[in-house]
């Protein structure tokens, strides 16, 4: 297993390199060079265009051949010099550092919410197959995966904040992260982000449980005289988790980050999604690139962690 982990690590590094390279290509292939974007903004602020242009070109080495630019770019990124955000007037790294926690808390809480409710409902659904509970759960999960997340957020705000006044319509950053008030104002965003995830988990868990419920070792477990709750809760569940873990982690990468981005914008939570959003309209490309890269590397890390975790969970792979 150790050699497998090392192989995966090396592979991840290669993917990381490929990600950075692709991003570089995208940036250089684009119709407007990063310089032009800065120029637009600088010109708007009334500074001397020519000298700024020269300074930028020198800094980013844009006058050099593209291969050299590539190495400078890679060098900068690896050293943590991720550029300057002129719209926020601070290094990009600092901007990220002060805002990542808001995204993190949202994603963490939403995922916990989705896993606990989703997997739980899925398990019950599988055990109570074809009963009213099952049909209701299936139907609701269909609705859950079809509802546009950002619209759900708006509707929740409309009902609970505008009409019922239970929550505020905006996110207040005065409250410390670990306070109850902060938790309270995160309720609607967590529900918004978590619902899509949750609906998916209900369906996947139900299907994984059903697949395993018809396996022979379940009959053996019952033949041993084990109480039904142990048969389901221990024997079936422990086998059903295996594909579930992969799916949950995969969802995290493909859907949750996008969903978090939109949720932050709807609720005004100052996380990285909001930061990127503001940067787009200020033409602050370094920030947009940075947020994209962070999201991507997180997914890479999560994929690696999932692979390792999975080999640990499944003894058939752990002991070849």
């Amino acid at each position, binding site marked *: 297993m150790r050699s497998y982990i090392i192989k995966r690590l090396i592979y991840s590094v290669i993917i990381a390199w490929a990600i950075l390279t692709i991003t570089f290509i995208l940036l250089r292939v684009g119709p407007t060079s990063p310089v032009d974007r800065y120029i637009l903004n600088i010109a708007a602020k009334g500074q001397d265009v020519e000298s700024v242009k020269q300074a930028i070109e020198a800094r980013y080495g844009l006058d050099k051949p593209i291969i050299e630019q590539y190495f400078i770019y890679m060098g900068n990124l690896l050293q943590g010099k991720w550029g300057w955000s002129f719209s926020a007037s601070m290094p990009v790294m600092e901007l990220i550092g002060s805002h990542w926690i808001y995204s993190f808390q949202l994603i963490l809480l939403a995922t916990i919410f989705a896993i606990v409710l989703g997997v739980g409902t899925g398990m019950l659904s599988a055990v109570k197959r074809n009963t009213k509970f099952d049909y209701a759960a299936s139907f609701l999960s269909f609705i859950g995966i079809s509802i546009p997340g950002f619209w759900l957020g708006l509707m929740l705000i409309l009902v609970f904040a505008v009409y019922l006044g239970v929550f505020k319509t905006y996110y207040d950053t005065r409250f410390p992260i670990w306070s109850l008030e902060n938790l309270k104002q995160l309720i609607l965003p967590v529900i918004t982000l978590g619902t899509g995830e949750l609906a998916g988990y209900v369906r996947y868990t139900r299907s994984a449980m059903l697949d395993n419920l018809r*396996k022979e*070792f379940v009959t053996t477990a019952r033949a*041993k*005289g084990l109480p039904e709750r142990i048969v389901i809760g221990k024997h079936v569940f422990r086998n059903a988790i295996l594909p579930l873990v992969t799916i949950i982690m995969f969802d995290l990468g493909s859907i949750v980050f996008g969903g978090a981005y939109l949720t932050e914008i709807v609720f005004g939570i100052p996380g990285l999604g909001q930061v990127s959003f503001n940067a787009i309209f200020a033409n602050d490309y370094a920030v947009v690139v940075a947020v994209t890269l962070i999201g991507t590397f997180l997914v890479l890390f999560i994929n690696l962690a999932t692979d390792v975790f999975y080999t640990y*969970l499944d003894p058939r792979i752990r002991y070849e």
Partner: protein
Amino acid sequence: MKVAYLSDDRMTGGTVLEVKNLKTWFFTHRGIVKAVNGVDFALNKGECLCLVGESGCGKSVTALSILRLFDSPPGKIVEGEISYSGADLAKCPVEDLRKIRGKDIAMVFQNAQSALNPVFTIGDQIVEQIKTHMDVSKDAALQKARSLLSEMSIPQADRALKMYPHQMSGGMKQRAMIAMSLSCDPGILIADEPTTAVDVTIRAQIMHILGELKTNRKMSIIFITHDLSLVREIGDRAAVVYAGKVVEVAPVADILRNPAHPYTIGLIGCLPDISTELKRLPSIPGSTPNPIDIPTGCAFHPRCPKVMDVCRKVEPELLNISDVQAVACHLYDSQGSTK
């Protein structure tokens, strides 16, 4: 109906399990699958009763029905009685059934790789069973597990305890499964085709183990198979099953020498004899009926060489034709003479 008992002095321990007119039906949207449709037999102490029949005849479902292990939304015991220790297992509450499962009556299955849970070690799975039924410490349970594995001739029992099913060979897995079933010292063991999925050398080992269980532990065994040679090897008595019904019950020697039911005769006739020269392997014409659509009257009548008019309309009862043999066939009346 009276079930035949052995008159052999050796085996007068008495009846430990009796199945009367058992019917287990599966209610599906395509129709009712009458997998078990009138099974009668009795199991005596210390004997090995073989349930013999082709695939799909209902012998496995019969075995599952004793401990009610079949899938219960579609399946249901619609009729019949399973007498064990003064209780009717067909009707008693599931809680009582759980106390018997794995403790008084244990079961081993055909395919050890799929019957064992792949994510837990063998040791864990055995200890789990012990601790469910007996109030002992984990260490004591592990000790017992270790000694059981050794008893099954599994080498390096300590290491084996920590192994996962996929790490063991086919024979080892099967023996580990048998060891697990014995962990609470059951009096009855139901073995559902335990040698079908393994090769010949392992088969010999397993059959040897089962034989030892009979002699050393005085266990009663229900052995399910389609292989008549195994019946002769280990069986004391045999019950032939066709289309969910027991059509003949007799001691093994009698059934092999003087089969009474045309189906049994046909089955034995299918065994190729090495001393004669054959151009074609003999077989019984026709095919086994679909449990959704069982023929009226005697289920075997479409294929029976001695079919009579009454066979098409009336189901024959299982009647004794001698002290030790019983048949369900219109050819015989209760005196044992052919009509």
